[in-house]
């Protein structure tokens, strides 16, 4: 399939200690009073204080907003936008994992375009520019610092809304591997598996391009090579490689999109508020099996990386690769069956009927109805 591709990413500042450029970046974007979004965990780890220190060194004024939880809520973005306007802030800086970053995008959006966050659900529905955004990811996973996505939970409908727009791509992403050192083992695994999932799904996406595919494969390779040593040793060298992997996966999925696995993961997050990173080891192998017929060769390429070598045929390599992935996830000491995180099997049908509307499903290599998704869930149960 030939089509016109597009590849857009923010400016990326990468390296140990790159956090100290935050103030300079905000200043260069015209900032005078920074709106800093983060959460309790990063406050406790001292990173919020460190960022404020950097801002003050640059003589920037700041306000701090931390009413953000995992799976950020619509009202939190509204409250944040109100605070932003009331304080007369300009540049928005987000420090954290996917939640603070997605919340910061929502705040930027509502503050500059008005209305409710729900008004912008879907693709390309933003018509006015957003305040400049500088994002500092604290996990090697979400890719929100790179992507054109913002996922916000609509509390009323119990749905995770996908808001997609090139305007949601931050201006600058500052990736400092030193921040990862303070992350828990659970968070490191969850983020890395999220990134792996981004890489796999964007690789097999219907709109993947040579520019995204190379990033996807790079991410898969790096995660397989460094995740286990990183968890075992927590050495900075391995964590740094996971950061690169996560950024590469972000570049890939922001431009190529995701697939059925993320459609289901979003719905699970919306209905059961499950931690996003925990869903992937359970669902990914089953989604890959479902997609196998539509993209055998591509899954074989992934399989070859997982196995370390090709098997006799493409089909063999692909199938063995998926099995290898299941084994790999099992070894990470995380839940691998859906029943471990969802109590009520009867709600799966509603879940799938909701997931079938998720934007991520658009790029899934094999068309999937809700029945197909329900089948995948049963497989994973």
């Amino acid at each position: 399939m030939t089509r016109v591709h597009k590849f857009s990413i923010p400016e990326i500042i990468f390296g140990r200690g790159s956090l100290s450029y935050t103030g300079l970046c905000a200043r260069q974007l015209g900032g005078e009073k920074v709106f800093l979004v983060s959460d309790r965990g990063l406050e406790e780890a001292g990173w919020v204080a460190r960022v404020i220190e950097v801002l003050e060194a640059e003589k920037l004024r700041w306000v701090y907003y931390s009413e953000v939880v995992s799976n950020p809520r619509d009202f939190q973005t509204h409250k944040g936008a109100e605070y932003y306007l009331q304080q007369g802030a300009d540049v928005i800086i987000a420090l954290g994992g996917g939640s603070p970053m997605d919340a910061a995008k929502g705040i930027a959006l509502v503050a500059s375009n008005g209305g409710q966050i729900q008004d912008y659900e879907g693709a390309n529905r933003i018509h006015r520019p957003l305040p400049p955004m500088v994002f500092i990811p604290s996990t090697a996973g979400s890719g929100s610092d790179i992507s054109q996505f913002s996922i916000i939970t609509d509390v009323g409908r119990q749905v995770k809304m996908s808001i997609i727009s090139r305007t949601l791509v931050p201006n600058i992403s500052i990736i400092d591997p030193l921040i990862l050192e303070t992350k828990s083992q659970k968070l490191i695994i969850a983020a890395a598996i999220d990134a792996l999932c981004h890489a796999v799904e964007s690789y097999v996406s219907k709109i993947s391009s040579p520019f995204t595919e190379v990033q996807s494969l790079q991410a898969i390779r790096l995660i397989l090579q460094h995740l286990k040593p990183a968890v075992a040793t927590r050495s900075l060298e391995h964590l740094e490689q996971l950061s690169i992997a996560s950024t590469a996966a972000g570049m890939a999925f922001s431009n190529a999109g995701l697939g059925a696995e993320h459609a289901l993961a979003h719905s699970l997050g919306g209905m059961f508020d499950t931690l996003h990173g925990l869903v992937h080891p359970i669902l990914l192998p089953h989604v890959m099996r479902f997609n196998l017929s539509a993209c055998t060769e591509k899954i074989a390429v992934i399989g070859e990386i997982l196995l370390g070598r090709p098997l006799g045929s493409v089909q063999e390599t692909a199938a063995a690769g998926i099995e290898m992935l299941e084994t790999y996830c099992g070894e990470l000491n995380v839940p691998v069956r859906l029943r471990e995180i969802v109590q009520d099997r009867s709600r799966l049908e509603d879940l799938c009927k909701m997931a079938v509307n998720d934007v991520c499903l658009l790029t899934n290599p094999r068309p999937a109805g809700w029945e197909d998704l329900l089948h995948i869930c049963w497989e994973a149960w």
Partner: protein
Amino acid sequence: MSQKPTLEDLIGIEYAKLGFFKEVQEKVAELQASNLKLELKRRHIQGILDGITDVMAIISLDFRITSVNQVFYNVFEETDPAGKFCFQVFRRQECRCASCPMVIALATNKVCRQLEIFPVNGKNRHFEITASPLRNPQGTPCHILVLKRDVTTEKEYQAKYYQAEKMATVGVLAAGVAHEINNPLTAISGFAEGLKRRLPRLKEKVDPDLAEDFDEYIDIILKECRRCQGIVQNLLDFGRPKSNHFCSLDLSSVIQDTLKLLQNHLKAYPKEHIRLRLQDPLPSIYGDDSQLKQVILNLLFNALDATSEKGCITLRTFSRRSGEEEWVGLAVEDTGTGIPSEHLNKLFEPFFTTKPAGKGIGIGLPTCYNIIQNHGGEIVVCSEELKGSTFLVRLPSGTSALPVLTL
């Protein structure tokens, strides 16, 4: 979601990260337009301000000048008034004026008007001052707009008008009084004449000494009656000028004729006591010969009274042209005692006199004033005590009828 996103939406080739560039462009265009509008408005207002011929100053609440208009520099010598105290710049004082119109305007929250006389560049000027508070957008006064209109000329005209009106009133009164006195006076003099005619018959019957007394007394009565009749006639002339015989005249020859009349009288004075500086030729004027002679006589007698034997009197004639108008002037200068400054502005008032009783009743100069007014001219005086006085008469030149001031 109103519309389900498509793959094309995800690729989003037509959608780029939105920037503020367009918005900035629009804002800049908007600002340029509004700036242009403001500039036009500013010029409009500047035009209005430039059209104001009064001195205008914006003064802060602590009495410091914030800004002034162009007229200020024409009137006052100060070249850089901004930041200085208004009382320093306007009045050359070191503290604020007692009845400051600004303070009143602020206290009453109304526009305050006041008339003030103060010297500017050494000359007393009459100013009408208007002070109005300027308010900031919150409505509290922050500055005061002060307008100073120079009404010196208007005030002078006004004073002249009052003077003329007074003269007219007094003239009518005097004529009435004179008329009333004339009848008894005629009776007195008539009966005195009758007594005088009967005296020869009385002489034969009485003591010759007594008859002589009667003769002398009746003569005195008649003489004093004639004097009274003269005064009454003067009063009547003052109040009701005789019908004019206006014709084209040469002022210099009128002066010479007048001096011939006085030849006898002037024998008592040194030869060079009266000097003539008469311009020849002099543009002719349109006037009444006998009335002008009366003016010259009056001025000359006053000058003679003021000078001692050592002093001298100069009579000058000259002509001046200013624009369309040409004037013929007569100056009577003396080096006499001068006139005290407090008397200067009363000189032309009827019945004002400094002469001893019996020497004058104070209608000489008022009569001169009336005559010159009737000729469309002007009479002014300047004098310095102990040095002398100059009476200056200005008459319009020309040979035909003039717009005569009606009294």
